[in-house]
């Protein structure tokens, strides 16, 4: 969902994410800096080779939770624009499951807000990741 008039851009899609589009979207004349976090699929977890990941989202609730995080970031730091895009489906090593992009007049706010957004997303947004190994598959964090 691209909301050009809104300073918040939230998307969950099964299409590949576009880093260039995301960083361009948050650009504003008042901005002194843009901070972009790009999550990528790593080839191993705790020494085990990961072949691919699969992401599943509770779409409607995940969109709402992502929007809440963006609003909370605006309430805490002087920001211009916030973008949170998350991909679903099967992703291969090196592909991009998440992009956070933040613009602000000064870099401190952009860095801090970007960190806050990805950390909070990982804690509250109903999206699940399954890791596929050579000898099996597991939903991450499901079991102690």
């Amino acid at each position, binding site marked *: 969902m691209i909301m050009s008039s809104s300073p918040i851009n939230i998307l969950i899609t099964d299409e590949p994410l576009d880093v260039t589009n995301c960083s361009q979207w948050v650009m504003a004349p008042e901005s002194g800096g843009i901070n972009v976090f790009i999550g990528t699929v790593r080839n191993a977890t705790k020494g085990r080779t990961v072949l691919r990941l699969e992401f599943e989202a*509770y779409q409607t*609730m995940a969109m*709402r939770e992502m929007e809440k995080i963006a609003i909370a970031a605006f309430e805490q730091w002087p920001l211009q624009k916030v973008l949170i895009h998350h991909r679903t489906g099967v992703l291969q090593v090196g592909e991009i499951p*998440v992009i956070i992009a933040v613009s602000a007049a000064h870099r401190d706010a952009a860095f801090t807000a970007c960190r806050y957004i990805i950390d909070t997303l990982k804690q509250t947004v109903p999206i*699940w990741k399954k890791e596929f190994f050579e000898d099996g598959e597991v939903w991450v*964090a*499901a*079991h102690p």
Partner: protein
Amino acid sequence: MTITVLAFGVAKDIFNAPSIQLELVNDATVMSLKYTLEQQYPRLKQLSSYLIAINNEYALPEDYIHQRDEVAIIPPVSGG
């Protein structure tokens, strides 16, 4: 009342379905829903934790569930 519980991630594997129908007393709480679920699907007790969402919001144990609510089981999230 009969409610539908949506399942995601590992919960979908435990239910072996993306959603299930459950019979609850009228105005049951989230706590009693979890108890009923765990009676029917004991593997839920092996999870690190799980929450219930009502109408796309995280619910508290004492919250009430109504007939037409959208109820979902939220196992530990792992996005990003």
